[in-house]
């Protein structure tokens, strides 16, 4: 393996991990406040198709990305309206969102399958991007990836180092007490549901505008579900979520590596590997033992109705 190949692998692995990281960060924010939204797959697909269609029609990447984020946020609002406003079962509401998003995105995108689009171009930061091995991977990526990293940093600071993070934790751990303390639980949960879904929508835009600049139905290929698992694996910590997502990004380009090493394997069996890795990771970390994950927010997925 030569240096160029390693540089390319790192570059691609970071791109593969970014949509997952964006979605997982969104899930993390919402879950810290106790909001369990299983509809990530549908939101991501809607984000992907919206970004692609808007970008194709207007020719503007920024508009596409904005639209994806907006569609994501509005799906989050829909979810919050059902679960926070009408006290609907969150598991079923999330599944409805997943089915609906998958159907609607396929419907909207049916005229755009196979239509060409140049992806968002990569930046080349002078001098730094010429560094051996890591230059291209760290300093020659697209602007959305750097936006994702910024968002990860902000998420980490807000969740773990600020008063707002403590308030969110209170809402996620014990909404009754938070309510008695004067925190507006439903409002806060609605807000985190929207922010979380907006980030998942952005992750969808990354898929259809950067990672594979095209639209095909179901192109998210389970990333929304994997992101939900990543948050469990990472024990609801920002650093862990980002690390797990990028580790996963690396695993998901395993097939490229294997091709290069001259191993041949059925593409279908290879396509299975991310899910198998995910299952194995869940087994290792969910069990009772040294590596066991930290526990979930106590009130995760429980509805709260302020009686007074």
């Amino acid at each position, binding site marked *: 393996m030569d240096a160029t190949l390693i540089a390319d692998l790192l570059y691609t692995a970071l791109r593969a991990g970014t949509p997952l990281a964006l979605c997982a960060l969104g899930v993390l924010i919402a879950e810290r406040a106790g909001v369990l939204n299983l509809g990530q797959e549908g939101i991501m697909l809607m984000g992907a198709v919206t970004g692609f269609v808007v970008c194709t029609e207007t020719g503007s990447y920024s508009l596409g990305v904005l639209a994806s984020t907006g569609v994501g946020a509005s799906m989050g609002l829909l979810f919050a309206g059902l679960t926070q406003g009408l006290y609907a079962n969150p598991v079923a509401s999330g*599944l409805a969102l997943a*089915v609906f998003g998958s*159907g609607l995105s396929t419907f909207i995108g049916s005229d755009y399958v196979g239509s060409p689009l140049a992806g968002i171009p990569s930046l080349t930061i002078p001098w730094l991007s010429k560094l051996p091995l890591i230059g291209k991977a760290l300093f020659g990526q697209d602007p959305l990836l750097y936006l994702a990293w910024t968002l990860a940093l902000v998420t980490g600071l807000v969740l773990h180092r600020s008063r707002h993070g403590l308030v969110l934790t209170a809402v996620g751990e014990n909404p009754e007490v938070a309510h008695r303390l004067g925190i507006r639980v439903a409002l806060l949960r609605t807000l985190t549901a929207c922010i979380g879904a907006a980030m998942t929508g952005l992750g969808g835009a990354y898929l259809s505008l950067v990672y594979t600049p095209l639209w095909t139905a179901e192109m998210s290929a389970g990333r929304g579900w994997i992101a939900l698992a990543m948050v*469990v694996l990472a024990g609801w910590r920002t650093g862990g979520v980002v690390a797990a997502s990028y580790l996963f990004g690396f695993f998901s380009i395993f097939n490229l590596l294997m091709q290069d090493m001259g191993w041949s394997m*059925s593409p*279908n069996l290879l396509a299975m590997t991310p*899910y198998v890795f995910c299952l194995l990771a*869940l087994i290792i970390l969910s069990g009772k033992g040294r590596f066991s994950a930290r526990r979930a927010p106590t009130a995760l997925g429980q509805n709260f109705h302020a009686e007074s």
Partner: protein
Amino acid sequence: MQLQKRAKPARHMLWLAPVLAIMLTLLTGTALFAALGLSPLPVLKAFFVDPVRDAYGVSELLLKVTPLLLCATGLSLCFRARVWNIGAEGQFLLGSLCGGAVALWFNDENLAGSARIGAVGAAVAAGIAGGMFWAGLVALLRHRFNCSEILTSIMLNYVALNLLLWAVHGPLKDPDGFSFPESALLVDALLLPSVVDGYRTHVGFVLALLLLVALGVIGSRTLLGFQLRVVGESAAAARYAGFHEGRLLWLVLLACGGLAGLAGAFEVLGPVGQVTPHLSSGYGFAAIIVVFLGRGHPLGILLAALLQALTFIGGENLQIEFGLPKSIAFIFQGLLLFYLLAADVLVNYRLVISGDSVAQVQG
């Protein structure tokens, strides 16, 4: 206006909410078609009425209802015990793969008599075993490793789909199939007999109905049904009563896996007649909506499955008549579940106008 918790759930709303949800879905559909520049009435007619206008259409509907009923029967057991098995799709696919593989092993023009019955029986048994194995993995991971069954069953769906794809591109591929990723066609002797000659509804539908009735009996007349409800309502109470939570977990998952696997084998031995990548139209997912819409009650499940099957067939019909993508079926299914979940608020809450002190006292 605000929502006020009812002293106890309103029974009439349990039945009214689905009706309300269906009406709202139809209204939204009308608006959607109008927005697409189509005249809503003919489209809705093509969606919901035309597919079942004649006996053939009804038979096709019952054909689609069969896998939905089987999966929904199993899922309703799981959901009653609050075991969120989202993996009926994967269990269905593994059942169809195993059932199909065994059927292909016996695929011979000269199959007849007791050998024929044995071969069909073996294929069906393999389908059930495949589905049970897949669901058993979920039970094992939850029981032994404490992994969320939602996540593991979803991951296994993707693994099962890729296994099926691998099989039809590899070991099960028809050598004379012009490189299409499909198995050979099964001989007629291996296919399930029709209920009525000339129509495609097969004996699986009758079996699915019987199993649905069995579900009703188990749910309301046996200790097992009671235990499932207690585990679902309160795990702590179930432990206190000495019910074995782990055993019930295994039981509902294996039962659901077996039923989904059976549905998968029936698809291969019934309408499809070979192993293809597109064996399921998302029956495993649609069945989840069926259970919610039908309230886990056998009659409700039957009605919901009929409606859900109609959206599948209607979607295909719209594709033929109006050139609309058939994914429109999933939009309707998602909408229906949204509206149902929203309408369900009225089961446990009542709307009161703020300041209405009488309602407050009575509440």
